[in-house]
């Protein structure tokens, strides 16, 4: 068999985190009853007029700046004409001729080092409604709540050569966009969607092969599987002397198989033209500068700063900054005076354990920065000990629980009653002559048995430092 190379470009759709739709004042909130977030504009009623949401322009520009794009300061919207029941106007408002961002790139880490993936363009457009197919009757049901939700489409150049590179690129985009707050970028909920354009060619060839486009990829695993599957089937075709057909395929992740949706032979003729309902957009130098100066600290800088300024290990900084909510928790806690290492330990240890147990993603953590800071303060001030702390952490993890009130209510405060504790330890010492003998013979570890029994007797609420001190007073 010949040596083949896979060539991949991506079209990534990202739902922007605006409160309202792109062209009307309907809510973008997810999960409302069908058609409760609709109006004449987003249902394409005759005579309705779209008015652009300013925040959409700002988010799109911010993403463009963060991905090293040139901003098209004079841009406009075009109509893409096609009939489909989820598209009530019979056209989608999008940008063809003057997309808001062009010619950018992001850098990804690969086994061979840093690699640039070029971005061809980023454009703004509106999302379509949702079609539900009724199994019992011969009809489909349309819900327009999603119709008009703002999207940006990020189109890369065909610069990726493996599934790993594709995932590194998507992760990079996700981090940039999440740090900007421009979207939550959840593949499984559809707020980030990737279409994979893939072709294969003989290694060393400078010509591209015929490509296929695969849609409906809603997890990193699905993307990796679809790429492997599509690569192999194209190589099989070429090896058996057949040709790859340019077509759009839909991935079915449960069957690990893709099927043809529509062939590009009957490629649709979209008849784009400038949307006469929307006036051009002019992004002045001043406005651009304002957006630029509001750019947040991104992951790479944050990661370096955590090591430099807070002296936490590189590994910890890598993990914490991989998810913006964790980085936010870390910074809130440190700002409130927690020790960076202590804060980092709880994010790396217990947080990751609970995330795994609950089978959620780390960016779905709902714990508030204020609760996390207050919790760490309880430990630092010696109000709760480590054993109890784990219980408290679990209780506050899902958000909405005040750790101070929780500790009070459940009587979890560390027992700092020295006289009471001394009495308990004296009794335990009396019952454990062997441990005492060992201890006094120089085996300091023998104290562990006494500490353990004291903890048990106090239901875990005793102050471990105090126990050690009392043991030392009584036996040394």
């Amino acid at each position, binding site marked *: 068999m010949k040596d083949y190379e896979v060539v991949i470009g991506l079209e990534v759709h990202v739902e922007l985190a605006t*409160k309202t739709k792109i062209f009307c004042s309907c809510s973008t909130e997810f999960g409302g009853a069908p*058609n409760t977030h609709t*109006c004449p504009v987003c249902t394409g009623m005759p005579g309705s007029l779209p*008015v652009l949401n300013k925040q959409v322009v700002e988010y799109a520009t911010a993403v463009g700046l963060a991905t090293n794009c040139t901003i098209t300061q004079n841009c406009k919207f075009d109509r893409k004409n096609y009939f489909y029941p989820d598209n009530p106007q019979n056209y989608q408002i999008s940008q063809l001729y003057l997309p808001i961002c062009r010619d950018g790139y992001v850098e990804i880490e690969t086994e061979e080092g840093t690699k640039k993936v070029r971005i061809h363009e980023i454009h703004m457009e509106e999302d379509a409604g949702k079609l*539900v197919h009724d199994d019992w009757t011969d009809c489909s049901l349309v*819900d327009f709540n999603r119709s008009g939700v703002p999207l940006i489409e990020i189109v890369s150049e065909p610069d990726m050569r493996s599934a790993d590179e594709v995932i590194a690129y998507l992760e990079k985009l996700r981090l940039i966009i999440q740090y900007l707050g421009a979207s939550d970028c959840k593949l499984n909920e559809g707020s980030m969607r990737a279409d994979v354009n893939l072709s294969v060619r003989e290694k060393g060839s400078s010509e591209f092969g015929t490509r296929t486009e695969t849609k409906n990829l809603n997890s990193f695993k699905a993307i990796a599987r679809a790429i492997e599957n599509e690569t192999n089937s194209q190589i099989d075709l070429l090896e058996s002397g057949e040709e790859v057909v340019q077509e759009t395929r839909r991935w079915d992740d449960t069957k690990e198989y893709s099927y043809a949706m529509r062939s590009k032979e009957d490629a649709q003729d979209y008849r784009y033209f400038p949307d006469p309902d929307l006036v*051009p957009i002019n992004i002045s130098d001043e406005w651009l500068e304002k957006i630029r100066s509001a750019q947040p600290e991104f992951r790479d800088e944050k990661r370096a700063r955590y090591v430099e300024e807070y002296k936490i290990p590189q590994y910890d900084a890598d993990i914490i900054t991989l998810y913006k909510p964790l980085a936010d928790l870390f910074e809130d806690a440190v700002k409130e005076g927690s020790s960076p290492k202590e804060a980092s330990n709880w994010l790396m240890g217990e947080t990751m354990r609970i995330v795994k147990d609950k089978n959620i993603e780390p960016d779905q953590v709902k714990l508030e920065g204020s609760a996390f800071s207050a919790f760490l303060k309880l430990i630092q001030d010696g109000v709760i000990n480590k054993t109890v702390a784990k219980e408290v952490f679990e209780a506050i993890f899902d958000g909405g629980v005040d750790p101070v009130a929780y500790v009070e209510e459940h009587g979890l405060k560390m027992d700092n009653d020295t006289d009471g504790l001394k009495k308990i330890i004296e009794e335990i010492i009396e019952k454990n002559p062997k441990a005492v003998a060992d201890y006094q013979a120089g085996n300091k570890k023998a104290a562990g048995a006494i500490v353990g029994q004291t903890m048990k007797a106090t239901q875990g609420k005793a102050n471990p430092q105090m126990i050690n001190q009392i043991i030392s007073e009584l036996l040394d």
Partner: protein
Amino acid sequence: MANIISDETIEYVGILAKLELSDDEKEKAKSDMGRMLDYIDMLNQLDTSSVEPMSHIFPVNNVFREDVVVNGDDRENILANAPEEKDGTFVVPKTVD
């Protein structure tokens, strides 16, 4: 009329517009479209080399809305436009890609 619209073109335009035209209507549409293209040819004779291309006839740009939810639930009114409704949705002929 300088521009002649072919039968294939009018057939194709009909498909794009989802219109079924009778033979008479096709002939009429062919002649209308031919005349429209003639008019465009006339415009194309003008020297526009010193005119900035524009996408809009008004000298207006940057008409924006602030990102504030104003619209509430108006489902009843919106669905009043549906040819048929079911469970708060528009019912359409079964459409699967």
